[in-house]
């Protein structure tokens, strides 16, 4: 059983192929060892950093951007989005403040300060 993945660690973009033999996963096609690591992670537990925004009342803008402090499981991205959609902050908001703590192993923090409107 083979399937192709494109490695995104560097601009080369090696086409990785994976194989399962005797229950062992192996990666081929990588031009460097980082690719093997990437390929295995993509197969067993693909993760992504999530960047999105949460609503803020009384701020310079209507939304403040946030990010996950660590990559979270790829299949949980939309769940995280739903959780964050429930949150509304109140301006002023400092950069780096935690809006959602310890969710799937990561915190969600603001990535900029949001001053009050008209400040």
């Amino acid at each position, binding site marked *: 059983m083979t399937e192709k993945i494109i490695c995104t660690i560097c601009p080369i973009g090696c086409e990785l192929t994976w194989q399962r033999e005797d229950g062992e996963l192996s990666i081929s096609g990588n031009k460097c060892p980082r690719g093997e690591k990437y390929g295995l992670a993509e197969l067993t537990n693909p993760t992504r950093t999530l960047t999105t925004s949460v609503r803020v009342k009384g701020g310079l803008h209507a939304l403040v951007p946030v990010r996950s402090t660590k990559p979270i499981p790829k299949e949980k991205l939309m769940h995280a989005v*739903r959780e964050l*959609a429930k949150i509304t902050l109140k301006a002023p908001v400092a950069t780096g403040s935690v809006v959602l703590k310890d969710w799937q192993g990561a915190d969600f923090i603001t990535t900029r300060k949001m001053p009050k409107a008209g400040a």
Partner: protein
Amino acid sequence: MKELQSDVVIIGAGIVGTALAYELSHYELSVIVVEKEADVGWGATKANSGIIHAAVHDLPSTFKGKFCSEGNKLYRQLESELGIKLRKTGMLMVAEKEEQLGQLEKIKKTGLACGEKDLEILTKEELLAKEPALSPHVLAGLYAPSAATTAPYQLAIAFFEGAQTNGVKFYFEEPVRKLKIKNKSIDQVETTNFNISTKFVINAAGVKAGEIAGLAGCPLTIKPRAGEEYLLDKSYGDLVSHLIFPLPTLNSKGILAIPTVDHNLMVGPTAVEGLGSHATTDEGREEVFRSIGKLLPQINSQGTIASFTGVRPAPPEGDFIIGSTDVGGFYLAAGMESPGLTAAPAVAKYLVAKMQEDGLSATRKKEMKKRIPPLRLHDLGEGELAELISENPSWGKIVCRCEEVTEAEIIEAIRRGATTLDGIKFRTRLGMGRCQGGFCGPRVLSILARELAVDKRAISKKGQDTQIAPLTREQLLEEVEGQ
């Protein structure tokens, strides 16, 4: 359903409807204009070539010829009266082939018959001296100094503001649903929300005039004729200083080069019979640039910053349809394709006089309130801007970088009736520049929402069902969850 009463009802707030409204506002009359779009001039008027024509195309025995000639003259007065801008380019009608020279002579004769002054047939050398960008293969040309260019939507807005300032009531997004006749005369106009009792109705509904006439039991066929226009950026603004016309064909004045009042160059329009579509097409673009490229080889489509299609209301027999009908009190100002823009103020005067002959009792007002055009950054002198900013800092906040439109101008446009993004655009030129609103659009959304005290999601491009960003993630996430 709200019951209203009015001496006169005008159906349609395009150039003809607004010119009529302005003319009628000179009289002690109650006047209501009903318009199906959210703003004035959003039918053929805004997609028009913007030309005040020299009367050379039609004989003075026709409405087209007579009213073009009169209208051209009236606009010179209206320039200062309403504060509209005309660019007095004059027209060069250019012959490329020997066979066309006879036609050129004939057209000059028509112009003379209409009272055009200072018409001249120019030689090749004279033509090229006037317009060096013309292709050297041109043979001769007719010069008509009275032609001018303008922004057609600005004309409609000026007539509208002049009329409104002097008591005319405008109702937008109010399409006419029924025309009620009593004793073979018009009795009521029913729109979506209003039932207006009246004795005089003018059908100035443009492409829809046929449908409206049908509501009154007066059959009328108005055929749509689509035309695509292409606006080139300001680096082409000085390529030509005159309107450049080819010789006309049977159904069209041809594909022109139009130096606009805002110093862009516009080329077009095409003429596609029976086509009511408002979409621009690859074929249309090719035709425009191929055609104008023969006369002006330096033009190419790379400089295009905007393109749009207008649909002309073409009359069944070739001439405007102006006057009374079999239904008492029901008048037509229909089939006003080119030179409709030029003819509008003259048609307005003619029709109002006709209505008076037919019994409209109208006393002329002793005094009119003057329509003051809005201030624009571009028109301000050195000291003026500094003063304005010190009184009102929003004069110092430029929102549209490409056309240098300030927040103050946007707020004023909203005060004067703009409720949509396009309404701001046509009044201030915001979004008409190189980036076509890419930078300023989202910011104006906020300004409109704030000034109109509505949610950002309600702000539309051009009225109902055209909201720019009507959804939120909360809505969509809920919808997806519900599935």
